[in-house]
């Protein structure tokens, strides 16, 4: 059996998304900035995509959408823009969380070097931040709050509407990295009180290297790329029309199937969680309910994640882990450390992110395979020996 269970890393493009791209490579290949027909046809398509994309996240104003090269670029631009607006007002304090994606965390590092002060909110063991703690952290000089909509590793969904409300009331710009949320759970920039939002096509069956940044009217963006006048001077470079058309089609499809898909997916996820919970000395990472429909993330004590992944790969299962040895750094996932998993346990993590066409049979196969591999690896783990012989105490 071949099971791709790493949809949080990237997804397979849908047929709809592939089909939507082809006309803009084959026939309507003009440059949207050109005045002749084939250019203007591309321009029209592009503006139509902008209008549809805006509508899909609850914005009635197409000019709030800037197309980018993906989630990372959107995150970088959002943070830089929010900071720049703050600097103009002499507000140099930014609030975010400890478990953001590196596109956000590394942008914050850069802003720190540029003189900003950054507060990273704690993430509790359930993988959620507390709005009251955010409220308490906001200062008169706070210019920007950035909290991810849903976490890419443990799938927890933050109380975004409440967070947005707090920021709105305090007059602080609120950005959310919604790369894992858009196309999977309902997102509405108006109702959720969002000022800026990042999204990426390849997380919802669209193409890689395409994404968008939403910025509410009145939130002035700073350009990262200088050049032509594309994207209302906020992002130079000839637009990736095939990618944008494809992304828009993918998002439309994901949103139209969302309520049905998330029902079946949630049921499969919960069965998977139930099955893996039977493995002794294991723990589910993140809140069991406030999480993305397809996300399962476990720690298994006494084993290391990379060897788990390699053996699952041998059984046809593609998954991911937050172990140090899979990342190439010496530290395990900052997300798992942020929710209080100590190193010993964080190394033995496994993330399974199901796709919408996962089946109950696949889920049973995964449960069986993971249970076998964990038991096998524990069989020659000196850590497991120390735990079972009582030399060390179990953490999980």
């Amino acid at each position, binding site marked *: 059996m071949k099971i791709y269970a790493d949809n949080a890393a990237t997804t397979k493009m849908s047929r709809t998304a592939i089909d939507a791209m082809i006309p803009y490579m084959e026939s309507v290949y003009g440059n949207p900035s050109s005045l002749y027909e084939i250019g203007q046809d591309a321009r029209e398509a592009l503006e139509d995509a902008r209008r549809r994309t805006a509508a899909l996240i609850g914005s009635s104003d197409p000019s709030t959408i800037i197309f980018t090269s993906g989630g990372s670029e959107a995150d970088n631009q959002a943070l830089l823009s929010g900071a720049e607006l703050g600097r103009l007002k002499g507000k140099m304090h930014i609030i975010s969380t400890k478990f953001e994606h590196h596109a956000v965390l590394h942008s914050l590092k850069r802003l720190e070097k540029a003189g900003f002060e950054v507060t990273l909110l704690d993430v509790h063991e359930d993988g959620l931040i507390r709005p009251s703690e955010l409220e308490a952290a906001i200062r008169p000089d706070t210019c920007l709050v950035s909290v991810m909509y849903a976490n890419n590793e443990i799938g927890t969904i933050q109380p975004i509407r409440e967070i947005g409300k707090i920021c709105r009331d305090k007059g602080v710009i609120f950005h959310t990295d919604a790369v894992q949320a858009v196309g999977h759970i309902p997102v509405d920039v108006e109702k959720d009180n969002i000022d800026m939002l990042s999204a990426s096509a390849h997380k919802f069956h669209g193409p890689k290297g395409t994404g968008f940044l939403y910025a509410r009217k009145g939130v002035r963006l700073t350009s990262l790329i200088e050049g032509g006048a594309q994207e209302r001077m906020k992002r130079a470079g000839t637009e990736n029309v095939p990618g944008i058309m494809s992304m828009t089609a993918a998002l439309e499809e994901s949103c139209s199937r969302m309520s049905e898909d998330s029902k079946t997916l949630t049921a499969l996820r919960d069965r998977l969680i139930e099955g893996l919970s039977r493995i002794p000395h294991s723990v589910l990472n993140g809140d069991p309910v406030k999480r993305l429909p397809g996300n399962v993330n476990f720690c298994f004590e006494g*084993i290391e994640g990379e060897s788990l992944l*390699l053996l699952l790969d*041998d059984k046809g299962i593609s998954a991911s882990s937050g172990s140090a*040895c899979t990342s190439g750094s010496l530290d*395990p996932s900052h997300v798992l450390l942020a929710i209080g998993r100590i*190193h*010993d346990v964080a190394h033995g993590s496994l993330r399974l992110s199901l796709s919408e066409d996962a089946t109950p049979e696949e889920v049973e196969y995964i449960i069986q395979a993971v249970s076998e591999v964990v038991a096998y690896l524990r069989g*020659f783990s*000196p850590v497991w020996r120390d735990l079972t012989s009582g030399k060390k105490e179990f953490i999980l």
Partner: protein
Amino acid sequence: MALYSEKVMDHFRNPRNVGVIENADGIGEVGNAKCGDIMKMYLKIDNDIITDVKFETFGCGSAIASSSMATEMIKGKPLSEAMQLTNQAVAEALDGLPAHKIHCSVLAEEAIKSAIDDYNARKKAE
């Protein structure tokens, strides 16, 4: 391109000399759970010859494969020779390791040295 060579995957999938030696003459454990790899080596020694060796490893593919390879390289060898084993030799015998995985193979060399040290210390104490 796979992450690891065929040789690494072979030793990872079918590790040689896995397990424990109940009355081992020397035991060495190196690494810690913080860094992500832990290796434990058990040696049976007769007349300064390593007659048997077993290992247990908590770690990545590189760590498990290098433990396995290292045990094969020292089994039946005199202690003096085993003491000379380097992680480069282990990595080479595995047809190379990715650059960021070399540190995992260092543990194999260290585990063997630590087990031999343990043996020597015990002998002295006798």
